[in-house]
């Protein structure tokens, strides 16, 4: 970005088998000084589609984005499902590295085609919301491009700024949200990337027969499993099917992590949302990227089917809803719209509003008050600039002591006092508090065996194996939700491995999944060590150990030794 030059380079041989998180974390680890300022000239933003992304492999339209996080100070990988990923893969671009830093206040757009990449002035969109901007960009560049963007919050270098991608309707609703990578992209002077796959050669497949056999096995598993099949749980209700389940488990955080259960949660459940979308003429089910069997996505709208927002995910509904005591889907929908429009990570925005309410900037339950806080960011006021830095900074500024963060990143939608295993993952993942870091193939597949009590604190091994498996899956391009099917139907996991072999011309076996995942995690942990992280950073905030969570009245009582034994 320093000289506004873009060039293609051949993929080094030792990168050839990498994809997604494996690619981004390897490049970040090798090329970014671990102690650099995340918003300075030495940090980089790396985009990489998964290994099978862009092929006919089902449910595989994922893109990873990596860099050093301004929120956590450590390595970050965030991923999203979007056709942008598929277009990039079909252009045979294994990774895109944004480096340097443009001097001055100008913002740029980078257009990528099969013939090269060129910059254009993007200043006319500075200060504008992404909904109107995406409409204008699609009008200017054609309906068939993919668009990545950063929003107004990134323009003020807010550490809760995500990197936005388009959904199939062209809405700015698919986010590589976590960790503030949007601020890193904006810090370099880059506002948009347009991915135009016209005349793209497509993904090279080394062994078509093995590949076809693999994706057939996976498709069969996805269509057979009750969670992933058409009209299954995710397809019918979306990810918000978890609202009622986690609430019943006493682990759905309400009112800034002060309770684990509330009767009102049922008003914002996936079941209620699905019914409401049908009434309004929204879209459900819906895919985030073409070729998905599961189709857990949706298009939420205002009453009457007007003003589509995009998907309201479980985490978003929780963060902007229950966590702020807002049990009104319309209010949550408008808050989610504000996040998408401003370029915010919905989880971090929700946990930030939660501590802001705790600190008196708005009242719990006040949806309009929460929207006013979003407007502070839009107007780039001093209050907005504080809020845009996320949960931890906002909480400290307001004198709040119940700040639900680890490594500076807001907790997702599972209270670690009720579900202690996920607390171990929040504490120890190199990503900062992150639910997806331990969401993957079951420990049984990894050879651990057995299950564990959610309130039994011996969770290190389970968390480690989940993190290893997730890291591997994040490299493939397959959505994490394939894990439900491949857990219960072993031929599904075989199919994933065969599809990787088909693309790469490799001879991987199922046992190699753990090796790949471990390698990725080792790279990430080593980066964080160089960045100055120690075991003391793998700790949850004091209130999680001290304040009992009603109604179970549990605290997080996993010992430091247990946490330190994860890695």
């Amino acid at each position, binding site marked *: 970005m320093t000289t506004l030059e873009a060039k293609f380079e051949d993929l080094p041989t030792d990168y050839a088998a990498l994809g997604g998180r494996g690619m981004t974390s390897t490049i970040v680890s090798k090329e970014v000084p671990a102690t650099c300022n995340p918003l300075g000239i030495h940090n980089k933003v790396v985009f990489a589609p998964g290994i099978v992304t862009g092929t006919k492999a089902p449910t595989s339209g994922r893109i990873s984005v990596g860099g050093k996080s301004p929120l956590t100070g450590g390595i970050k990988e965030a991923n999203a499902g979007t056709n942008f990923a598929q277009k990039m893969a079909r252009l045979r671009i294994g990774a895109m590295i944004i480096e340097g830093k443009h001097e001055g206040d100008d913002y740029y757009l980078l257009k990528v085609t099969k013939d090269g990449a060129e910059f254009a002035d993007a200043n006319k969109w500075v200060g504008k919301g992404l909904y109107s901007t995406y409409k204008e960009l699609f009008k200017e560049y054609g309906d068939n491009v993919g668009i990545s963007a950063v929003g107004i919050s990134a323009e003020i270098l807010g550490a809760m700024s995500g990197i936005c991608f388009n959904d199939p309707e062209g809405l700015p609703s698919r986010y590589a949200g976590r960790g503030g990578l949007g601020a890193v992209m904006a810090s370099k002077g880059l506002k948009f990337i347009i991915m135009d796959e016209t005349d793209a050669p497509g993904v090279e497949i080394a062994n078509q027969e093995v590949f076809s056999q693999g994706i057939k096995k996976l498709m069969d598993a996805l269509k057979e499993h*009750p*969670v992933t099949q058409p*009209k*299954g*749980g*995710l397809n*019918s*209700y979306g*990810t918000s*099917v*978890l609202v*009622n*389940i*986690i609430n*019943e*488990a*006493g682990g759905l955080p309400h009112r800034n992590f002060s309770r*684990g*259960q509330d009767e009102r949660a*049922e*008003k914002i*459940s996936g*079941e*209620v949302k*699905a*019914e409401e979308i049908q009434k309004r003429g929204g879209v459900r089910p819906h895919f985030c990227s073409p070729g998905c069997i599961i189709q857990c996505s949706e298009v939420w709208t205002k009453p009457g089917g007007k003003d589509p927002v995009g998907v309201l995910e479980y985490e978003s509904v929780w963060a902007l809803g229950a966590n702020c005591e807002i049990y009104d889907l319309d209010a949550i929908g408008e808050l989610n719209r504000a996040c998408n429009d401003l370029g915010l990570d919905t989880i971090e925005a929700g946990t930030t509003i939660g501590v802001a309410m705790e600190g008196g900037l708005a009242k719990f339950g006040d949806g309009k008050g929460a929207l006013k806080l979003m407007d502070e960011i839009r107007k780039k006021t001093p209050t907005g600039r504080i809020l845009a830095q996320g949960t931890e900074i906002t909480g400290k500024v307001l004198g709040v002591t119940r700040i639900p963060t680890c490594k500076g990143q807001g907790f997702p939608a*599972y209270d670690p006092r*009720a*579900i*202690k*295993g*996920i607390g171990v993952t929040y504490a120890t993942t190199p990503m900062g508090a992150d639910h997806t870091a*331990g*969401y993957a193939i*079951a*420990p*049984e597949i990894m050879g651990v065996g057995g*299950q*564990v*009590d*959610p309130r*039994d604190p011996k*969770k290190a091994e*389970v968390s480690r194996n*989940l993190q290893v498996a997730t890291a591997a899956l994040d490299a493939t391009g397959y959505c994490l939700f394939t894990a*439900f099917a491949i857990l219960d139907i072993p031929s599904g996991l075989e199919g994933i491995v065969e599809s990787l072999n088909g693309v790469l011309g490799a001879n991987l076996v199922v046992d190699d999944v753990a090796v790949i995942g471990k390698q990725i995690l080792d790279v990430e942990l080593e980066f964080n060590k160089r960045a100055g992280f120690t075991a003391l950073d793998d700790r949850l905030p004091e209130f999680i150990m001290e304040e009992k969570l009603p*109604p*179970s009245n549990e605290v997080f009582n996993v010992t430091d030794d247990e946490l330190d034994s994860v890695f």
Partner: protein
Amino acid sequence: MPIRVKFFGDLRKKVQPDIKGSLPLKFNIDPDGIERISDILDKYNIKEDEIIHIFVNGRYSGLTKKVKNGDIVAIFPINMSVLYKWYFKREEDE
């Protein structure tokens, strides 16, 4: 004090086949003849493979879990098995 039961999703149709809306179905049952979760399922002709998550007073539970007056029981149908189930162990009773 009866046992408080919540059925979610399609499981609600086992009690009210023509049920409308999407909120969970909540009802009380007389504890007479109900010793364990499996007895509740039998009462409504629900097969084991039709359900997935059972919570008794917020504790993740299995079919042999004993229930008593005042307990709150939440049961989810098989297509709602979306959960970090690897972090959970079903509580059972002898």
